[in-house]
């Protein structure tokens, strides 16, 4: 187990370097980092050249990347063009997005798994068909439609919630946005749970459990669910990274000042430091989430643990 963790940690290094290098090159080479500084007008060539020297942009690319990464590891993500430290932006944005993600994951677990178990055990019955149809609708409709619709109905027409989230973004305000963010994944979790359950229901070890004379609820919880939920848990785990980075649409709709909002602003204003900084942290989040999922997998499935 220990060696497995070390191996996985080592594997993370090239992935981290590769992905950050890609995003660094994309922003600094393909775009012009200085262009954003002069607002909507074209930059004066002399000023631009001076700024380039100042930011070290006249140096070779690899050196720029090395310098950047060096700074990142000392906790310096650079300064946004408005003079704010990128780390400062992060310290306000990440807690908000983390809260939003927690709400979304809770929805996935509670509603998604429950519906999945319900339909998996009652395959072919009306409940199953109805839920299946609903998940299909949720998956097919883009998030911004679901989001705007809920905002309009619950926030404006019926006035049950505030249509936009305050800068504090407390948990209570994030329930509807969390549901919107979770919606598509929730539908997938439902379907995954249902299929996994229906498959395992026919497994030999379930028949054995019945033949042992175990009560039905014990057959279902101890034997059927324990096995069926392994792929679901790993799906939800990997989804955490996706939810944190993919909240751009939801955060825009509900005016939540989280990671997605900052990224969006950064891209819009060509704010290089913000974009590279946030993406670098998101890459780390993805990597750590995936590592945790793999370790969790080993805990849940002994066949992997000792392999």
């Amino acid at each position, binding site marked *: 187990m220990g060696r497995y963790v070390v191996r996985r940690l080592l594997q993370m290094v090239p992935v981290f370097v590769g992905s950050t290098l890609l995003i660094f090159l994309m922003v600094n080479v393909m775009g012009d980092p200085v262009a954003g500084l002069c607002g909507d007008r074209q930059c004066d060539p002399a000023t631009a050249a001076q700024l380039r020297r100042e930011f070290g942009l006249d140096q070779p690319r690899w050196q720029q990347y090395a310098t950047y990464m060096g700074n990142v590891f000392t906790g310096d993500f650079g300064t946004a063009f408005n003079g704010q430290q990128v780390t400062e932006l992060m310290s306000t944005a990440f807690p908000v997005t983390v809260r939003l993600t927690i709400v979304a994951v809770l929805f996935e677990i509670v509603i998604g798994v429950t519906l999945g178990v319900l339909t998996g055990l009652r395959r072919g019955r009306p409940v199953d068909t109805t839920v299946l149809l609903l998940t299909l609708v949720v998956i097919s409709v883009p998030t911004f439609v679901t989001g705007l619709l809920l905002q309009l109905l619950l926030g404006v027409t019926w006035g049950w919630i505030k249509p936009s989230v305050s800068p504090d973004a407390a948990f209570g305000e994030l329930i509807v946005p969390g549901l919107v963010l979770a919606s598509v994944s929730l539908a997938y979790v439902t379907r995954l749970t249902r299929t996994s359950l229906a498959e395992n229901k026919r497994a030999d070890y379930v028949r054995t459990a019945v*033949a042992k*004379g*175990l009560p039905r609820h014990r057959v279902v919880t101890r034997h059927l669910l324990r096995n069926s939920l392994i792929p679901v848990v790993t799906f939800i785990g990997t989804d955490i990274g996706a939810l944190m980075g993919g909240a751009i649409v939801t955060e825009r709709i509900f005016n939540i000042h989280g990671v997605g909002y900052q990224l969006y602003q950064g891209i819009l204003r060509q704010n290089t430091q913000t974009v590279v900084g946030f993406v670098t942290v998101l890459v780390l989040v993805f990597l750590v989430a995936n590592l945790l999922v793999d370790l969790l997998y080993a805990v849940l499935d002994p066949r992997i643990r000792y392999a």
Partner: protein
Amino acid sequence: MLLDVRDLRVEFRTRDGVAYAVNGVSYGVDAGETLAVLGESGSGKSVTAQAVMGILDTPPGRITGGRILFRGRDLLTLKEEERRRIRGAGMAMIFQDALSALNPVMTVGDQLGEMFVVHRGMSRKDARARAVELMDRVRIPAAAQRVRDYPHQFSGGMRQRIMIAMALALEPALIIADEPTTALDVTVQAQVMDLLAELQREYRMALILITHDLGVVADVADRIAVMYAGRIVESAPVHDIYRAPAHPYTRGLLDSVPRLDQKGRQLYAISGLPPNLTRIPPGCSFHPRCPLARDVCRTDDPPLYGVDDGRSSACHFWRECLHDRDH
């Protein structure tokens, strides 16, 4: 009679129509007796056993007739809760492939102990101790350590021993073993079979051994029931059947066993294939493959003729078959 199955009928709804898997099977076992149920795949031997255990998949399966008397009570009239209490405690089943029949994410100790926790209300700790005892009983080395292992950490033979231990746990009166050695190496097969036979004698359990392996049967069985297309075609004490089969299908099975003194000669095989269970031939269902078949076999379904004391054969020409020993 400990278990008395009478005229059992089971159907399956399939896409191609109704499959008649079991068509009036009757058999019984006494305490301490071993009945071997012999037949090809699809002959209905496993389905009958599943119906007895009450683990038939319904739907698509359906019991359409007959009675299953266990200690004089008809299991088919009992409520599910009553049947559940009998499963595991009164009768237990050993499955063919122990790797898939054991839960992959549960330690063998928990899976064995579960029997005591559920049926006897024991604490987990006591149940664990009993699990170690059971593993010792089926001669798994270092049971006290291995009780925390998972099924995939055991060899095939050891896993099948765990299945046997699980079936033995509550000392049931009847054990049904569905091809218990088919998935094992030949050398391990003999060990597992010997162990099963020994434990059966010790606990005086009745054993229904479902198999298609005639070699296994000869050593351990008291009686043999041969099944074909969901019916019992011949039933007899084990020695009688080997000496002189009273049904051409049994004869075909015996003749298709490879023998050392026939080395180099072509192995006998029964011609044709077992019937499609959705379209079982009229008359005797074996007639399209039978060397003795005549017109009457195509129209008249043979009843089980009493051949001798404790012997019966569902062949119109059982006399011919019995006496014509050398074809």
